[in-house]
C-alpha cells in the first residue's frame, strides 16, 4: 500500500502541468475541476496510506529516482511513510482539496483563473514533497518550492506593485531562514555523514554524532523554521502576505506551508530533545511570537490582518509546545489549527466576496442575516480558536497550556495571556463583522449575498472538522474512561519523541475550567463592548493613545527592519560601488591603463590586422624562453 505514496505528489504535479500547457482551451469549470480532482485523488490515496499506518505504524521508504550521489554524499528522490508524514499528507490534501473547490467559486471572475488553479496545484505538489521526503535535502526542495509558489501567489495580482513588494518581502525574508537551514544541513552532513532520516534518526542514530555541535545544529534548523513559520523576529512577512487572494491565505499562510517549521522541528525531535539550549530558544521565540501576535491582532481592523496575526500567534503556541518537548501536541495543534484557521480564512473570503472586496471590519456589521451559512460556520471557527469545549481548538491549546504549567510558570502565564487575547480579538472581529448595524455603503448593502455552493460546502465541511477534530487527542481526564486518551500521541510516537504529562486528572480539569472561564470572560467583555455598548472603532487618524498606536503600528518592526537592514545594505552596496569598485579598483587599472596606452602608442604601427603577428611573437617568445630553460 505504501508504494502508492509516490502517486500522491504526482497528481497535483500533473494537474499543474496540464493546466499550464493545455489549459488555455479549457473552460474555467473544467480547469477548476481538474485541479480539484487531482488533489482529491491524492487525498483518497492519503487516506489509504494513513489507515495502513494506523493499523501498524512503521516507517517505509519508497525510492523514486537516484538524485545526487557524489563521493560520500548520497541523497535520493525518495519518500518516507510514517505516522508523522502520513498525518501531514492527510490534512494537506484534505484541506487542500476543499480550498481548491472553494477557489472555483471565489476566483471565478478573475482573468487569471487558470494560472491560479495551476499554481495551487504546484504548491500542493511541493508541500507534499516537503513532508514526504526521506531526507533533509528533499525537504529543502519542497521548502523552497512552496516558497516560490507562495511568492507567485502573494503577487498573483502582479499589476499592483504593493502585492509584488509583499511577495518579494516574503521570499527574501524566508531566504534568511533558508540560509540557516542550509548551514544546518551542511553541519549535519559534515558531522554525521548523511542527510537521510533513516541514518540520522529512524533506523540509526547518526544525529548523535553532532556531539557538541548539537545545539548549533538545532538552532540553525530552527532559524529555517522561524522564517517559514513566521516566528519572531522573522514574522513580518506573513501579515503582508495577505496581499494574495484569500484562498491562498487559507491554504498556504494558515493551514499548510507556515506549519512546515513545526514539521521540521518535530521531525528532528531527537535532535532538539538532546539540546536544552536550542529548546529554550524555541520556547521563548514561540512565547514572544504568541503574545506579540495576539496583542497586535487586538488592534487591527482589516479582517485578513486580524487572522494573519492570529496565525502568527497560534504558530507561536505550537513552537512553545515544541520547545517544551511536547512535540506531538504541537503537531496536534497544527492539525486542529489547519481546520479552524482555514475555515476562518475561507469565511473571511466569503465576507470579502459579498462586500465587493472590502476588508475593513469597521465598514461591515450585521452580515448575519445576509449570509447565514458563512455566519454559522464562522462562529464555529471563532469558538474553536477561542478554546471552548468541545471544539477542536480547546483540546490542543489546553494541552499546550498544561505542559507550560508543568514546565515554566512564566511561559504558562504569558501563553494564558495570549489565549485570553485570542478570545477577545476573535469575538471583537466576529461581532463587528456579523452583528450590529451595517456600516458600509448603500451599494455594498444592496450587493450582499450568500456565497455560491462551491464556497459554502468547504465552509460546512471545515466547520464539522473544527467541531470534532479535537477528539483525536482527548486529554487524559476525559479520554481515559473512553479508552481513547491521547490517541494521536500514541499514533505519532512512531515518528516523534513523546513527552509524558504527570498531571493529575483533577489539575487537568481545573486548568481546563480556568482557561475556559477566562475565554468566556473575554467573550463577554467583547460582547459588552461591541454589541451592548456598540462602541465605535477608532478611525486610523483617531488612534492616539501610545500603547494603542504601538500595537496598531505592529511595534514598528517594519520601519525598524527598513532602517536596520534594507537601507544600510543598499547604502553599503552603493558605497562599495562608488569607493572600492570605481575609485579604487578602476583607478588602479586606469593607472596601468595609462601605461598600456604608452605601450599602445609604441605599438601603433602594429595595429589593425597585424596584432596577430604581435601576439604570435609573444607566444613564440615564450616557447623560446622554455627552450632556453
Amino acid at each position: 500500500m505504501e508504494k502508492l505514496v509516490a502517486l500522491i505528489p504526482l497528481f497535483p504535479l500533473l494537474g499543474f502541468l496540464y493546466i499550464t500547457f493545455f489549459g488555455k482551451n479549457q473552460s474555467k469549470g473544467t480547469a477548476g475541476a481538474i485541479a480539484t480532482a487531482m488533489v482529491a485523488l491524492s487525498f483518497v490515496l492519503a487516506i489509504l496510506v494513513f489507515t495502513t499506518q494506523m493499523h501498524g505504524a512503521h516507517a517505509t521508504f519508497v525510492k523514486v529516482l537516484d538524485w545526487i550521489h557524489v563521493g560520500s554524499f548520497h541523497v535520493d528522490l525518495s519518500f518516507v511513510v510514517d505516522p508523522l508524514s502520513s498525518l501531514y499528507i492527510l490534512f494537506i490534501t484534505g484541506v487542500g482539496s476543499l480550498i481548491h473547490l472553494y477557489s472555483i467559486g471565489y476566483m471565478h471572475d478573475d482573468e487569471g483563473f487558470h494560472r491560479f488553479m495551476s499554481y495551487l496545484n504546484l504548491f500542493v505538489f511541493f508541500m507534499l514533497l516537503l513532508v514526504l521526503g526521506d531526507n533533509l535535502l528533499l525537504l529543502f526542495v519542497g521548502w523552497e518550492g512552496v516558497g516560490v509558489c507562495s511568492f507567485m501567489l502573494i503577487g498573483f495580482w502582479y499589476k499592483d506593485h504593493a502585492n509584488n513588494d509583499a511577495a518579494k518581502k516574503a521570499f527574501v525574508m524566508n531566504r534568511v531562514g533558508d540560509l540557516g537551514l542550509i548551514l544546518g544541513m551542511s553541519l549535519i552532513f559534515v558531522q554525521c555523514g548523511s542527510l537521510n532520516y533513516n541514518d540520522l534518526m529512524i533506523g540509526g542514530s547518526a544525529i548523535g554524532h553532532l556531539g557538541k555541535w548539537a545545539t548549533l545544529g538545532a538552532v540553525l534548523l530552527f532559524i529555517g523554521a522561524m522564517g517559514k513559520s513566521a516566528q519572531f523576529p522573522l514574522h513580518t512577512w506573513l501579515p503582508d502576505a495577505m496581499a494574495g487572494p484569500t484562498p491562498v491565505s487559507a491554504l498556504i499562510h494558515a493551514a499548510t506551508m507556515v506549519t512546515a517549521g513545526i514539521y521540521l522541528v518535530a521531525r528532528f525531535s531527537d535532535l532538539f530533545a538532546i539540546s536544552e539550549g536550542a529548546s529554550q530558544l524555541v520556547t521563548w521565540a514561540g512565547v514572544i511570537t504568541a503574545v506579540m501576535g495576539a496583542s497586535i491582532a487586538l488592534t487591527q481592523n482589516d479582517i485578513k490582518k486580524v487572522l494573519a496575526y492570529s496565525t502568527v500567534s497560534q504558530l507561536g503556541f505550537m513552537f512553545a509546545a515544541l520547545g517544551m518537548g511536547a512535540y506531538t501536541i504541537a503537531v496536534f495543534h497544527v492539525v486542529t489549527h489547519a481546520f479552524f484557521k482555514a475555515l476562518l480564512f475561507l469565511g473571511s473570503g466569503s465576507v470579502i466576496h459579498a462586500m465587493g472586496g472590502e476588508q475593513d471590519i469597521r465598514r461591515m456589521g450585521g452580515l448575519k442575516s445576509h449570509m447565514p451559512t458563512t455566519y454559522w460556520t464562522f462562529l464555529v471557527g471563532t469558538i474553536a480558536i477561542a478554546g471552548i469545549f468541545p471544539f477542536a481548538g480547546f483540546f490542543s491549546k489546553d494541552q499546550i497550556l498544561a505542559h507550560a504549567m508543568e514546565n515554566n510558570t512564566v511561559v504558562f502565564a504569558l501563553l494564558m495571556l495570549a489565549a485570553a487575547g485570542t478570545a477577545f480579538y476573535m469575538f471583537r472581529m466576529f461581532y463587528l463583522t456579523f452583528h450590529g448595524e451595517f456600516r458600509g455603503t448603500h451599494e455594498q448593502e444592496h450587493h450582499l449575498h450568500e456565497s455560491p455552493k462551491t464556497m459554502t460546502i468547504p465552509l460546512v465541511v471545515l466547520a464539522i472538522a473544527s467541531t470534532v477534530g479535537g477528539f483525536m487527542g482527548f486529554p487524559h481526564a476525559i479520554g481515559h474512561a473512553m479508552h481513547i486518551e491521547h490517541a494521536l500521541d500514541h499514533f505519532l510516537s512512531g515518528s516523534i519523541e513523546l513527552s509524558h504529562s504527570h498531571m493529575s486528572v483533577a489539575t487537568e480539569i481545573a486548568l481546563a475550567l480556568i482557561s475556559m472561564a477566562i475565554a468566556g470572560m473575554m467573550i463577554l467583555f467583547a460582547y459588552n463592548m461591541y454589541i451592548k455598548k456598540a462602541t465605535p472603532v477608532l478611525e486610523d487618524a483617531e488612534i492616539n493613545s501610545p500603547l494603542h498606536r504601538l500595537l496598531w503600528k505592529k511595534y514598528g518592526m517594519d520601519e525598524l527592519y527598513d532602517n536596520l537592514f534594507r537601507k544600510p545594505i543598499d547604502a553599503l552596496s552603493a558605497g562599495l560601488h562608488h569607493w572600492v569598485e570605481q575609485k579604487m579598483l578602476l583607478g588602479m587599472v586606469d593607472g596601468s591603463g595609462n601605461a598600456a596606452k604608452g605601450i599602445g602608442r609604441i605599438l601603433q604601427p602594429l595595429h589593425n590586422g597585424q596584432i596577430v603577428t604581435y601576439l604570435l611573437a609573444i607566444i613564440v617568445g615564450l616557447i623560446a624562453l622554455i627552450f632556453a630553460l
Partner: protein
Amino acid sequence: MIALSIFLIPLLTSFLLFNSKTGNAAKTALTSLILMLLVAIGGRVATAYGLTGTLSFPLISSIGFSFSLLWDGPAFLMVLLTIIAGLGIVYFSQDKEIHSSNRFYGWIMMMLSAMIVAFLAGDALLFYLCYEWALIPIFFLILKWGHGEHLSKVTMRFFLYTLFGSLFMMLSLLYVHQSMAAPSFDMNAMWAAGKALTAGEQGWVFAGLFIAFAVKMPVFPFHSWQPSTYDHAPIQGTMLLAAIMLKMATFGLVRWAIPMTAVGIAENGHWAILLSVISVVYASFMALTQKRLKMMIAYSSVAHVGMISAGILSNTDQGTVGGLFEMFSHGILAVAMFVVYAIIEKRYGHDRMQEMGGIRTAAPAFAFLTFILVMCNVALPFTSGFVGEFLLLQSLAHYSLVYTAIAGLSVILGAAYMLRGFQAMFLGGNTHAFKALSKNEKNILAIAVLLVIVLGVYPHSLLQLIQNVY
C-alpha cells in the same frame, strides 16, 4: 581521433569562413556545431564501449611537450558545454544583422576550437598555449563588433590584464617543469612533480596559478576589467566570455591546480579561498546596486564563479564535482540570461530596469521562462543551479562553516537583487509596447529552461559522468 576531430571541425570551419563570402556564415557555423555535437556524443558512447578517445604525439621531445588530448568525464563535460553554449550563441545570432558575418562567425569558431583544446589538453604547455590563444579571437570580436565610446581602451585593458595574469601561470608551470629530472609537460608527470614539491613551494606554485585564474574568472579584486568588457563587447562576445571562456580558469583549478598543489592549498592557500568567498559577497553587493540589467547579470556571474572557486579549493569530492556541475549549469544560464537581456534591450533600446515594467502582461510566456531562469540563478531546488551550488557550499562547510555562512549570504542577496530586477522589468502596470518574441528567441529560452530543469530534477547521470575519473 574523437578528440582530434572535435577541435579540428571548428578550426577548419573558421578557416573556411575566413575565406568565404558573407552569405551563409551562420548556417555554416551552425552546421559545424551540430556535427561537433554528434561527434562528441558519439565519441562518448564509443568510449563507454571501451574505445579510447585519448590521443598523444610528441611535438618537442627535448622539453617533453606533446600534443596530448584527454577524453575523460570532466573534459567531455566541458566540451559538451562549449558546443551547447556555442550552438546557443550562433542560433541566437543567426537572424541578427552582423557586418562581415563570415569573419564574425569565423572568430567565434576559432575561439571555440582553442577552448576545446584547452579543456582536452593533457599537456600543461598545450593548456597554457590554448588558454592564451583563445584571447585572440575574442579580442577581435570585441574590437571589431563591440560598441561604446571607450571601446579600444576597454578592449586593450581586458587584453593586457588577462594576458599579464596568465604569465604567472607560465612561471608556475615552468617552476614545476624544471623541478623534474626528465622534464615533461605531460599531465601525469606535472602532477607527480607538483606533489613532490614541499608545501611551501606548492604554495607559491599555486599562487601563480591562482592569480592567472583569478583574473580570468574573475575573482575580487582582479575583476575590474570585467564589467566594462562585458558592457562593450557584442552580446555574443559577452556570452562567450561568461559561458565558456572563464570556465577555462575554473577548470584549470580542477585539472591542474588541485592535483599539483593540494598540500600547498591546504597549508598556504587560505588567502585564495578567502578571496573567493569575499568575491561572492562583494559581487552580490555590486549586483544589488546596479541599475542596468547587463551589469546585474555580469556581477551575478562573478558571485557564482566565486562560489565555484571557493568550493573547488576546499578540495572535497563534492567541491570538485559540484564545481564542474556548476560550471556546466552556469554556462547554460549565462547564455540564457544574456539572451533575455538582448531581447529586452532590443525592444526598449536601453537596459535600465527601473524604467521598464509590465512585460509580463505583454509577453507572458517570456516572463514565465525568464522567471525560471531567475530561479535557477538564485539556486532554487529542481533547477541545475541548486545542485551545483549546494554541493559547493557543502564542500566549503568541510573547510569552514563560517566561510559557508559568509558565502551563503548570496542566498539572500541573490534573491533580493534578482527579484527586484524581475519585478521592475516584468511586473507592475504595462508601460511600453513589447513586440512578441521571435521563434528563435522563444526556442532558445525554452531549450535553456528545459535543460536547467532536467539537470535539476535528474542530475544523476551527469554527476556520474563527471566522476568518471575521480
